[in-house]
């Protein structure tokens, strides 16, 4: 089978939208829901995950010849845990306030199955360049999803966006949105929206194919 060289741009876009790790693959949800009660927290968490994913993908794909098959998962986990420790200490030094708010959820990036999944499914089999591009795409998709969820929850739950009042004093905040149930409900509704968009697209494509087929059938006898 000839090896097709995948287009770097395609790899990037794939992570951002078509195979979005959160909305389409439903991976890495534990840190995702816990810290997305405001847009700032969501961005910090997304940024931390971004760094860990890109750095580990880079290291895993450059070391792939030397990692024995039997212990590869443990090796990946140790590489990821190293970068998470680095991020944890860096955040504590640079932005102590946000680090305190995210608390125990920064170390929990290790257990984000999305990161391990990318190492196993992509970085271990592809060149360094492609692995980094793939990680960049997936991480941006994750960041985008976190940001979307965090914004919705902050706007509805507190009537603010990045701490700026949006609706004036008469707005009654939906406190439930910043509490745990709000996380589940918002993600559920966002997934529903993505399903709906996907379904519409599929139906549209089917209809177009039907029209094409019909046109072809109509044309061929002549």
């Amino acid at each position, binding site marked *: 089978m000839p090896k097709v060289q995948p287009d770097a741009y395609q790899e990037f876009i794939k992570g951002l939208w078509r195979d979005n790790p959160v909305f389409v693959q439903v991976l890495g*949800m534990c840190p995702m829901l816990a810290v997305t009660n405001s847009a700032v927290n969501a961005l910090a968490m997304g940024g931390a995950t971004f760094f860990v994913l890109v750095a580990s993908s880079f290291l895993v794909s450059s070391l792939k010849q030397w990692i024995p098959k039997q212990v590869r998962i443990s090796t990946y986990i140790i590489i990821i845990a190293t970068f998470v420790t680095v991020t944890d200490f860096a955040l504590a030094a640079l932005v102590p306030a946000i680090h305190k708010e995210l608390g125990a959820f920064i170390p929990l990036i290790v257990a984000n199955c999305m990161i391990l999944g990318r190492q196993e499914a992509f970085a271990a089999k592809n060149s360094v360049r492609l692995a980094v591009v793939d990680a960049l795409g997936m991480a941006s998709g994750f960041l985008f999803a976190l940001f979307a969820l965090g914004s919705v929850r902050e706007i509805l739950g507190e009537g603010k966006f990045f701490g700026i009042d949006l609706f004036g004093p008469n707005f009654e905040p939906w406190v439930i949105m910043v509490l*745990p149930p709000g996380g589940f409900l918002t993600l559920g509704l966002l997934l529903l929206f993505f399903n709906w968009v996907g379904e519409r697209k599929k139906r549209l494509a089917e209809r177009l194919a039907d029209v094409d087929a019909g046109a072809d059938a109509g044309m061929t006898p002549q």
Partner: protein
Amino acid sequence: MNELVWIFISSLLINNFVLAYFLGLCPFLGVSGRLETSLRLGLATVFVMLITAFCAWLLNTYVLIYAPYLRLISFIVVIASTVQFIEMVIKRLSPTLFRALGIFLPLITTNCAILGLAIFSTNKGYGLIEGMIYALGAGLGFTLALVLMAGLREESELAPVPRLIRGTAMNLIIAGILSMAFMGFAGLFSAA
């Protein structure tokens, strides 16, 4: 004594790992299709959590005071090897139980609730007894959430739900309502 009961109730109901901290969501959404399997997975998780709590306490008291930056790496290595070890022991001692647990046993390694447990109980500065009680409460809380969810999902399979909503979207909304119900337990704080 009173405080130990409190730690147990708090980790079981009020700060339920799944419904309040969002830990262990992958098995919560992935394995909660059948009542029986989710019960088994829950009990296996309780078991691993107890052992992890014990190992985390050992590490914290004897090793990590000298090298705190190794905390995360050593926890994850301990969890992975504990699961591997338990798998071998169960396979040897009780092949029946091993077959019953099946794929769920290795999957526990990637359950962030276990790592979360070790990190939370370290952050709270729990000793050995408190840590074990905390692990028991958290594990049983995880089992409770999993079993409730599985029951709800089995029922909802018979309901006429539009096809678009079926699947993860509906499960998340069910989880949201369940989590809302569990928030009621926060009232226990003011009662006590």
